[in-house]
């Protein structure tokens, strides 16, 4: 017997979990299959969540397959990540209004309900942790982000069906989250039947678990969950030595392979937009036609945009080769020194959602594989003003 874990029915138990979170005051967000992709959105009913959905992912390719099987978490995440909810793609940060000659300043209201994120994989839980180090860092903490994150209830899910673009085990992760969640679900399907094993990761997770209509889990259930984890690990070969990447990529600034990538790269920004740790944003000002109201918005931005590196009258990274090199080496190399964590969690989104099918692993390998060439080259990006 294991009283710190319960077994839930995959349908009625899921509904009970949604209801318990709703009753506790959360806005419950979960996976929904829409227009052929998994997105995260409000879920009120468990029937809105996928059942029997499988996903085939490859470089530049995503396809969904639906069958009659009852699994709730047999899909892998799509382009959408939880970033969209803790760090919205577009938000208003300030509004000022002129009335009778004086200005009043308003801050937009905080979201009315804290978020419950239902179905976060290990890569996604770790991505939130990486984003935290950036958004809550000591120099420029984002108060609105801090509020959303502190209040967010995370229901993590053990990954039982990793996709071919997944490479979490290379970047310090794995199929099963170990911290950073309030509850963790592992979907079991064996001779004892189809069921969800639910385990708490925090006090408030225990409080929610206490009201769920589950039975106590047995040691056989825990063993079955370990089997799920092992089965996934076996399908997740280590494809890059994550911890060694900063050293392996050092000095690669002028590597000829960046030009090779640039011939294929569309500079469309998709990789950065779908990345759950990319944090760049830009601010813009807007005014009303009568000039009596002004507001400022924040919007996701990308290092593939020319404006992103626009300094002193020109983009510092004017070529696609420079921009792709910036993106890859920031994720896999320089982020570590800058933030103290890795910038990549190995979720594979950048590879799947690249229209040109560029695989970050293959590109990193190509550069690392010929470091002897790169080592002889000098550092770069020394700007010479045109005369």
């Amino acid at each position: 017997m294991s009283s710190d874990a319960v077994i839930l029915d995959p349908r009625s138990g899921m509904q009970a979990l949604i209801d318990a979170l709703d009753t506790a005051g959360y806005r419950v967000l979960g996976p929904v299959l829409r227009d052929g992709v998994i997105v995260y959105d409000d879920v009120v009913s468990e029937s809105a969540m996928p059942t029997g959905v499988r996903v085939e992912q490859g470089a530049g390719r995503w396809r969904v397959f639906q069958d009659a099987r009852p699994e709730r978490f047999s899909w892998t995440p799509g382009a959408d990540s939880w970033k969209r909810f803790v760090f919205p793609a577009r938000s208003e940060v300030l509004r000022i209004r002129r009335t009778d000659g004086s200005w009043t300043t308003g801050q937009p209201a905080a979201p009315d309900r804290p978020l419950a994120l239902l179905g976060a994989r290990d890569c996604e839980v770790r991505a939130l942790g990486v984003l935290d180090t950036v958004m809550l860092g000591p120099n420029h903490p984002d108060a609105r982000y801090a509020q959303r994150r502190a209040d967010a209830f995370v229901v993590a899910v053990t990954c039982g069906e990793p996709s071919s673009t997944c490479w979490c085990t290379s970047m310090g992760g794995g199929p099963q989250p170990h911290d950073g969640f309030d509850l963790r679900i592992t979907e079991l399907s064996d001779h004892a039947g189809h069921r969800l094993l639910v385990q708490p990761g925090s006090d408030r997770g225990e409080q929610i678990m206490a009201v769920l209509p589950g039975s106590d889990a047995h040691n056989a259930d825990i063993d079955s969950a370990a089997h799920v984890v092992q089965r996934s690990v076996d399908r997740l070969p280590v494809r890059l030595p994550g911890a060694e990447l900063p050293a392996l990529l050092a000095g690669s600034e002028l590597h000829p392979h960046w030009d090779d990538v640039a011939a294929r790269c569309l500079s469309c920004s998709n990789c950065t937009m779908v990345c759950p740790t990319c944090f760049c944003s830009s601010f813009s000002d807007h005014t009303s036609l009568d000039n009596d109201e002004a507001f400022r918005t924040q919007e996701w931005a990308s290092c593939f945009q020319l404006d992103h590196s626009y300094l002193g009258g020109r983009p510092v990274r004017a070529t696609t080769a420079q921009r792709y090199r910036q993106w890859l080496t920031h994720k896999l190399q320089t982020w570590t020194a800058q933030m103290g964590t890795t910038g990549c969690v190995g979720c594979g989104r950048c590879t799947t959602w690249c229209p040109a099918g560029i695989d970050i692993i293959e590109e990193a390998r190509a550069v690392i594989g010929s470091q002897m060439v790169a080592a002889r080259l000098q550092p770069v990006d020394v700007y010479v003003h045109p005369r």
Partner: protein
Amino acid sequence: MSGPTVAIWKFASCDGCQLTVLDCEDELLAIAAALDIRMFLEAGPAQMLDHYDISLVEGSITTAHDVERIRDVRARSGLLITLGACATAGGIQALRNTADIDACRSNVYARPEWLDTLATSTPIAAHVQVDHELRGCPIAKTELLATITALLAQRRMPISAYSVCVECKLAGNPCVLVAHGTACLGPVTHAGCAALCPSLGRGCFGCFGPSESVNLDGLRSAFGEIDVSDDVLVHLLRTFNTEAPEFSEASNRYRAAGPEGTTRRDP
């Protein structure tokens, strides 16, 4: 009437961009209060002044008379801002640029000799200096309003030259190219439409023209992976922005690489 004096001019075009001005229904009264619109034949005002603070120009240059008239407009204007694909790239009528104009004329008109036209359709910037361009077929109301309000507040005019893909991801759209295998020009197309077509499940038609950073050979390879032929790609590139330099160069090269029709496949 107050604010800067404004003229809205039409050259070879369908009037869709001018109609987008009128489509600012909720904002029309505020626009009329903020701008002193003196010339806008589509809406009524027809005062020929020696000087307008701002000229908005729709359409492309297709006749000898147009060439003279745009120079006159330029001379009367403080800021000259072009509206839409015709004015910024020559429009869909620029398909004539690679065709036989005499054949076109006699195929379309019963009395072709009555028609006085140039062999080409060219953008406004090919003839006079343009201070700012709004892309699109037609322009986006949001970009028009953002431009007007920026001018009124003397702020930099905000144009996002990155790809439509960014707008799709901001909106949370599924990628029709990656997830559905649909031909989509989004990765090479200038933002501004808020990803209108992909938001409705269609591929982007490229009506805002090339983005700031275009790799059409890369897109061609990506199309190859989803079995979209050169023929389809060339058709997509040869629409509203057919004479935009990046689109034109690539479509001519892909057409030259294979005879038309031999690889045709419906998108």
